[in-house]
């Protein structure tokens, strides 16, 4: 009888990518971006390259003007479709602005009025849109893995950019967070970063963790009540704190997450008030942190829940910078995938 290959006793794997990590789909054989689905697995040079490209579009840090007014013809003749199956304002707008500043034609598909609400499958939607000679889909969807699904089924000439899939990934948010941190603290190896709040449901937290690890952050903490910390998250390279004081001690960067009230069913928390008392970033808590601490939030914020209003727009807050940088980072990613330096060039 044929001897059993020990590796086969365990997980059965085949030749269709099963058992592999989630990232190879988004890279070309020579390591360039084909799609952007997740930060996980990006090399440090590639991630840094995206941030460097974003600098081209973001303007000088001191100007506080960001990419306002800057328009380049990089994607002239290309068509980008924002396919948002989940409600979003700021993310969709920044993607739209980014594409327009690269001179692409932009379509925004209103899902509530689209054929998916009539029963059309996601695949049908994709194929129908592809037939309209679309070059890139920017996709937000409530299901984890939706962007991977689209990428697996997209035509070879069509790129997928993940604008947030379920709880899984929000890569451009993480990239703009890294861009923002880098502008103030480029020494990632010395940074202790605390991510506070609803880690369980947060795609931003997951993508930030991947990005911070790739950039070599000294320590990454996730902070929140146990109901909002998913099992086994330590395997992503973080330490877990259920107490905000220990979680924020000596932190250089504090990333607050929106408490997703729409998901607060199932007795995750007794009340938003209690959450604010135990995990909200208040002026009093901020005063105990390092004077140069950076305060970040992917928005939209819940004032008086995860962050006190005065702190949200206080001198340590980078929240508005994050929004501004979102456009530059998204321009960089779109340009790298579809532009002259893109994978299909």
């Amino acid at each position: 009888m044929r001897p059993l290959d020990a590796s086969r006793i365990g997980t059965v794997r085949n030749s269709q990518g099963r058992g592999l990590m989630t990232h190879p789909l988004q890279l070309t054989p020579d390591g360039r971006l084909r799609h952007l689905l997740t930060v996980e697995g990006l090399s440090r040079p590639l991630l840094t390259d995206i941030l460097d490209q974003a600098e081209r579009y973001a303007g000088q840090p001191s100007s506080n003007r960001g990419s306002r007014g800057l328009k380049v013809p990089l994607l002239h003749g290309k068509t980008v479709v924002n396919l948002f199956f989940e409600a979003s304002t700021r993310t969709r707008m920044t993607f739209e602005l980014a594409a327009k500043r690269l001179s692409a034609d932009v379509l925004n598909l209103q899902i509530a009025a689209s054929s998916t609400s009539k029963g059309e499958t996601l695949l049908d939607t994709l194929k129908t849109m592809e037939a309209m000679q679309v070059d890139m889909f920017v996709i937000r969807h409530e299901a984890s893995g939706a962007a991977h699904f689209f990428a697996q089924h997209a035509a070879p000439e069509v790129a997928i950019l993940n604008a947030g899939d379920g709880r899984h990934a929000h890569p451009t948010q993480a990239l703009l967070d890294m861009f923002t941190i880098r502008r103030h603290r480029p020494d990632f190896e010395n940074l202790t970063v605390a991510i506070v709040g609803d880690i369980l449901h947060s795609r931003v937290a997951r993508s930030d963790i991947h990005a911070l690890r790739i950039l070599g952050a000294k320590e990454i903490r996730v902070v929140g009540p146990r109901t909002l910390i998913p099992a086994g998250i330590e395997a992503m390279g973080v330490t877990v704190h259920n107490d905000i004081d220990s979680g924020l001690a000596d932190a250089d960067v504090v990333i607050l997450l929106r408490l997703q009230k729409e998901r607060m069913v199932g007795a995750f928390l007794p009340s938003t008030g209690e959450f604010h008392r135990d995990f909200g970033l208040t002026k009093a808590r901020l005063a105990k942190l390092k004077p140069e601490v950076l305060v970040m939030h992917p928005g939209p914020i819940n004032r008086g829940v995860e962050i006190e209003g005065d702190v949200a727009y206080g001198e340590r807050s980078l929240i508005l910078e994050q929004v501004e940088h979102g456009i530059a980072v998204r321009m960089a990613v779109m340009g790298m995938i579809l532009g002259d330096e893109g994978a299909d060039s």
Partner: protein
Amino acid sequence: MSAFLNNVLIRNARLLDPRAGTDKVADLAIRDGLIVATDSGPFEETFDAAGRWLIPGIVDLCARMREPGATQKGTMRSETHAALASGITAVCLPPDTAPVIDNTAMVNRVNRIAKKAAGAYVHMLGALTKGLGGEALAEISALKAAGCVGVSNGLNPVASPLVARRALEYAASLGMTVHVVPLDDALANHGCAHEGAIATRLGLAAIPVAAEALAMRQWISLIEDTGARVHFGRLSSARAVDLLASAKRLGLPVTADVAAHQLFMTDADLEGFNAMAHVIPPLRAASDRDALRAAVGSGLIDAICSDHQPHELDAKTNPLPQTEPGISALETLLPLSLRLVEAGLLTPLALAERLAGGPARILGLSQGGFALGARADLCLVDPTEEWRLDGRNMLSAGRNTPFMGETFTGRAARVWRG
């Protein structure tokens, strides 16, 4: 693949008889669908089975045929023939067809469809509660009279421990085994993956092991009170194995099975959002898989089943959380189980016990052995044939298998259904 000749002499087979506990090279004869003495010739065919194993026809404790209710996924004809070609001579159908098997008319209807299909025998579990709603008891006595071999609420929750207790008492008074998939619905919480590092990283809603353990603990408590016979199906975790062991140590009338894929896959197979690995209960950690394998090896887990759930292509063509769970598994049940023999976890005789003897006993069927006069449901296994699972050659209408393209060693070479 299958043969229905009236008079056959099978010569020189390695006869693996789990009922008698024997493993020997000998001849076996079939006449008019029954096992008869080998010297009762003449025979229409003499079949040389040297080098091959003859086991009782496999009895699959859980296989969906999809008819009635979802014939876009499979039909009684396609699935019972896929079963038979895979060495499975009898399948046990859960009651979650559409409509639900909760009355005698449905039992009769399914029997008619199955008889017409003329593949593997189809045995049925009747619904434990009306419409599988979990609230009111189904007419279990009538279901038994109509031929159901047990009752079950499938994957549907029972409304309360009180309903569960009454269901056990009532079924026990009729001598019916209650088949339970232990999974607490509230804790499962519409999840699609094992709670752990992989689900967390992929952002998949998780099902904790406690969902299985809590349900099992509750049912075991009720078994202690009622003495009802319960079969735990599709176990997925090491903790469930421990609970099963303690229940058996207490002498409770419990048995259990595991789906073959749970013995070979883990939650790591969800990487890349692989919808083919989306099953309920979910694929769990490697330590859970190892505990399940050990329990199958020791006989603590009585049976291996397919948990066959064929799907049409569309059901798996979506982002993973939005796909339908389940694997088309009839055609890999025996080949996967043979890997356990290859790995030294099962002897060939123990394999026959887990696939045929054990499940037949659990269902109260007379199959599962080679006694003279027994129905000749037989599977001749070629343990050396190398073959590749190819969708073009699958008989099941469902091509939804994570093992597509895998190479296997061993399969059913020939099947007789008495």
